[in-house]
């Protein structure tokens, strides 16, 4: 319990350890003079990109899960 408390307090105190800060203001979110991928968002194409990345991640995950399962099977056959 004590340990958990210390960890929690440490996490909160990290925020105060930083040096000189450049605070991010609300205006930074609406600052239109900085170019961002607005056109991508406006055309809706960014979602295509997110879809592509998620599909790749899904593929890798499925592969990892199947490897995991194969090893589980091997472990079972070895024990028996």
């Amino acid at each position, binding site marked *: 319990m004590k340990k958990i408390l210390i960890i929690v307090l440490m996490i909160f105190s990290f925020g105060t350890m930083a040096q*000189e800060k*450049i605070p991010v203001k609300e205006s930074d979110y609406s600052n239109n003079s900085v170019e*961002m991928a607005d056109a991508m968002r406006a055309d809706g194409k960014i979602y295509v990109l997110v879809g592509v*990345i*998620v599909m790749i991640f899904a593929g890798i*995950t499925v592969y990892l*899960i199947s490897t995991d399962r194969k*090893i589980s099977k091997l*472990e079972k056959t070895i024990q028996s």
Partner: protein
Amino acid sequence: MRQSWWKILTIALLLYTLTAGLLMDVPRLPILNETIRALHFHVTMWFGMILMLVVSVFYSIKYLRTNDIKNDDMAIEFAGSAILFGVLGIVTGMLWAKFTWGDYWSGDPKQNAAAIGILMYFAYLILRNSLTDSQQRARIGAIYNIFAFAAFIPLIFVLPRLTDSLHPGNGGNPGFNAYDLDSKLRMVFYPAIIGWTLLGSWIATVRVRMRRVERVLEDRMINS
């Protein structure tokens, strides 16, 4: 799948990282532009690497105390995952640097230190592979691993801060924590660290189990 709850958590956290990390509003800052989102991908590689190296060193120490080869399996495979993350960190950092600092490699102290660190860990793999006796390999590997970690931490956390560096948080540069103080970035950044680290740990544990199955099979071959 064995102990699947944390594996499901890994997938959930990473799906959140990939979608929210790419879609959520971010501060519009000059030079960085949309690349600020690399915070959730490039920076987290290094956090993941260091967390996994801690695990690796923990098992190296445990091996030296117990002489149980199972601890060595954990040490080498967690180091392996960490090295993979480190290489990805360097490569993604180079691409990011090209479009924000102007060059793939600008001899930045932190870039150089990270490269040296990676080379130290390559040496760890080569050292291990050059030894044939498994107990000797584990023992020498464990000692090297502890020393490498002790050199790696000051190399990437302390030394670059003592001089001028392009990396945020070094040489008078404000840290990214100035930006990720921004609660919206943190909402993705922290889950991303946990997610990527868990993914690396998952890969490491799968490989550890493979090693152990191989060992059992080898022992049976010898004994039969």
